[in-house]
């Protein structure tokens, strides 16, 4: 009998707007010592599944409508909350996506890791602390004796996630629910955390339910995979089976739309190329494979051959020895100011109509570089030459004409749209300000055609940003950047927060716009596969400096720098 057996679980959310079937009749099981990956895009019900099993959902609006969850022979659904609490944290533990907000900033790490033992077991404080310390060593925290007594804020993201894992495993649970535990981390840190999870599984025999949206991570860590879509399990099987021979069209689409190092497509396939969704009048959804999926894919593949047509073109942007140093704010008569060298001597060349990818881990200064190029941050020294004109030291008035020619798209499309402006206002404003187009009617017409160009329609004009989905919002941001008809766009992690299927759509949009309008991109990202897909050239950044820059193919095939090699090795691979 499996350790954890979920049968026909149904969790619905009842709100005034109607009933949402967040988890709709799903079944899967978890054996002892097994790692099962649950994959799905945001809103597919993977976290809700987890929370339903542990009885952690707010009820109402949520309600478990049916099904059973047996854990080690006991039924968990409908179990007395007190008994369930004894299971939670002791026999089933959980770790979360954001290690920053999951640790209490007012308690020492050791206290927090020891707390579950003190809550669930009748042991002395000394024993609990010594066991906590042991567990902290196991998850790879060096100098655990010394560091355990510090507070969470002095720990880095990866260290905090390790502390979280220690906290979850310190009571020696049978099952660990890991809800996107590496999503907020850099690839190199992610690789280490995944390694730790696998080692601990081997050592402690704990079964792990690993929830993620990242297929690469699943391929790296899991034994079996469960793929969820719209509250249903669409396919499950061993990792090898599923990646080699996916049977469900959604899974096929998901695997195809993820850019990898080997992707040859010019335009990525999307889930829609495989999957046909039909919504019946009663709200029930039927999923069908497209009959022409194979042809569509073939067409995309043949289109890919066009690449490489554009070669050496005019230099558009030249960055020379760019430096941005921040002074940390010194206290009043307190400690002296420190200088943070966010960008420390970066030189780049970007040619017209091409894409330069800028990769690096968080905090390496890639975002600051992008903003300093656009003169949104004043560089400390160095020179930015755009189309032959030096931008450094220009007054705000003199920069303004260049604002039309250079634009930026941000990571979080929601935060980058004014929540109090309708889409129409947001798109008209730049044109009004820069006097683009002749008169009101012309501008309106331009807004409509822009919306259509990015795949939205004029019926969206009167809506506010919050009424759109994440992918649509990013399209809006692209449309807004295009209102001033720029020739150069900085894409700052602009697909990083998206599901792969949405990411593919936005990447395709960027590519189509580049083909049509001859745009030049500086594509900033931490995701090496995405950068490989979009870029003609790639620059790798570490601690404020460019450590390697080369043609994209060359750099990925023959990395010269150690750090580049380290980054490339850390990317989860799914080649079987």
């Amino acid at each position, binding site marked *: 009998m499996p350790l954890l057996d979920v049968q026909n679980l149904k969790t619905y959310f009842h709100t005034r707007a109607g009933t949402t079937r967040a988890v709709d009749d799903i079944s899967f099981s978890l054996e002892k010592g097994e790692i099962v990956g649950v994959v799905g895009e945001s809103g597919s019900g993977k976290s809700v599944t987890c929370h339903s099993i542990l009885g952690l959902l707010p009820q109402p609006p949520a309600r478990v409508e049916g099904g059973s969850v047996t854990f080690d022979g006991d039924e968990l659904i409908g179990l007395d909350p007190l008994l369930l609490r004894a299971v939670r944290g002791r026999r089933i533990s959980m770790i979360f996506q954001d290690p920053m907000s999951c640790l209490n900033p007012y308690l020492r790490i050791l206290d927090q890791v020891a707390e579950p033992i003190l809550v669930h077991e009748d042991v002395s404080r000394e024993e609990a602390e010594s066991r906590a310390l042991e567990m902290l060593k196991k998850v790879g925290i060096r100098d655990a004796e010394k560091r355990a007594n510090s507070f969470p804020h002095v720990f880095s993201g990866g260290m905090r996630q390790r502390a979280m894992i220690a906290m979850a495993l310190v009571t020696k649970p049978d099952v660990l629910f890991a809800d996107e535990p590496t999503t907020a981390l850099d690839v190199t840190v992610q690789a280490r955390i995944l390694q730790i999870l696998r080692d601990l599984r081997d050592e402690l025999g704990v079964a792990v339910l690993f929830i993620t949206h990242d297929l690469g991570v699943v391929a790296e860590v899991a034994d079996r995979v469960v793929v969820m879509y719209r509250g249903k399990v669409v396919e499950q099987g061993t990792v090898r089976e599923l990646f080699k021979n996916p049977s469900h069209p959604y899974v096929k689409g998901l695997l195809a739309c993820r850019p990898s190092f080997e992707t040859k497509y010019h335009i990525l396939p999307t889930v829609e190329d495989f999957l046909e969704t039909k919504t019946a009048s009663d709200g029930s959804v039927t999923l069908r494979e497209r009959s022409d999926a194979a042809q569509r894919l073939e067409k995309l593949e043949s289109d890919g051959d066009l690449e490489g047509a554009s070669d050496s073109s005019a230099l558009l942007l030249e960055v020379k020895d760019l430096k941005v140093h921040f002074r940390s704010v010194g206290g009043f008569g307190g400690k002296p100011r420190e200088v943070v060298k966010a960008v420390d001597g970066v030189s780049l060349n970007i040619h017209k109509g091409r894409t330069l990818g800028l990769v690096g881990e968080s905090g390496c200064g890639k975002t600051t570089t992008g903003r300093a190029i656009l003169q*949104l941050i004043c560089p400390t020294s160095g020179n930015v030459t755009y189309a032959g004109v030096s931008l450094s030291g220009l007054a705000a008035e003199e920069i303004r004409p260049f604002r039309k020619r250079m634009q930026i798209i941000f990571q979080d499309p929601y*935060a980058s749209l004014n929540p109090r402006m309708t889409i129409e206002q947001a798109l008209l*404003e730049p044109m009004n300000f820069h006097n683009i187009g002749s008169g009101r009617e012309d501008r309106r017409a331009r807004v409509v055609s822009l919306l259509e160009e990015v795949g939205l329609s004029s019926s969206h004009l009167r809506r506010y940003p919050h009424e759109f989905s994440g992918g649509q919002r990013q399209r809006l941001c692209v449309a807004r950047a295009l209102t001033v008809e720029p020739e150069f766009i900085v894409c700052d992690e602009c697909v990083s927060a998206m599901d792969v299927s949405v990411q593919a759509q936005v990447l395709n949009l960027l590519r189509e716009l580049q083909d049509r309008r001859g745009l030049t991109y500086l594509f900033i990202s931490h995701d090496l596969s995405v950068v490989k897909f979009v870029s003609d050239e790639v620059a790798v950044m570490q601690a404020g400096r460019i450590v390697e820059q080369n043609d994209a193919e060359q750099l990925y095939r023959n990395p010269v720098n150690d750090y580049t090699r380290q980054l490339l090795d850390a990317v989860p691979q799914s080649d079987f």
Partner: protein
Amino acid sequence: MSAKNAQAGSSLWRDAWLRMGRNKAAMASLAVFTLMVFLCFVMAWFCKDPNAVTLTNKFAPPSGDHWMGTDALGRDLFSRILYGGQISILVGLVATAVSVCIGVSYGALSGFAGGRIDATMMRVVDTLLSIPFLVVVIVLQAVLSDWSSDTSSWIVTHWKWDKTFTDRLTNIVPLFFALGLFGWLTLARIVRAQVMSLKEREFVEAARALGYNRFRILVRHIIPNTLGPTVVYATLTVPGFIMYEATLSYLGLGVEAPNSSWGILIKEGANFMETHPGLLLIPGIFFSLTLFSLNFLGDGLRDALDVKASKD
């Protein structure tokens, strides 16, 4: 505020109005408040003289002649409440409007400018906060009382306004000054904190990338996003100002006898609480009804101005 509101785009306000229409509590409050304003500012002109003393008819119970009875000097309570309401509502609304205008502009500028300008501007706020309020009001009253009687007689001779009316009006101007001078301090701090976090948001950076000037960014992109807390705070300060007026009047610094205000009526009524509770209760009911309706209105406005509110 109104100039900024106009720039925030008409559709925000049109949508807000539509959303508010669906909020029953807010609409009922709006009706109650409108009724109060109508009673005090229109009906009052058709009432008895609020200052006509009839010592033979004191503490009269409600009757056809005196709808809500008379007070200790035989004055008609109903008309005193309506005339008093003029002062109270005016003080509450005008002082709030003044403090919102100053507070939002000052706080927004301070937060947006940052650095030394911000530090200096905030020290000014701190300094003002540290001055005892009453002292300033007393000084202001002394300085401005000559001015207000001069202005009053000037208006009466030049514009031929009614003397009692003009007196009543100029009488409360020092009060507006005093309340307005201090009322905006807290709001400035609230708005400053909001602006400081808003200016780091990406849509502000996007606006900069589009080349907008700072004034436009501040007025069109940042200030409209501070509206929610501002509206709530503003509606909460209205009762505060009305209470201040009552306190000051009680000390002989605000509205001068024989004029009335709700604060004065309640204080007077409290003297006869045991024998004639109506003198306390009736003005109290008017006062509370107005404050309740303003609070609900504030909540309704905040929800209505929140574009993220659900459409159902």
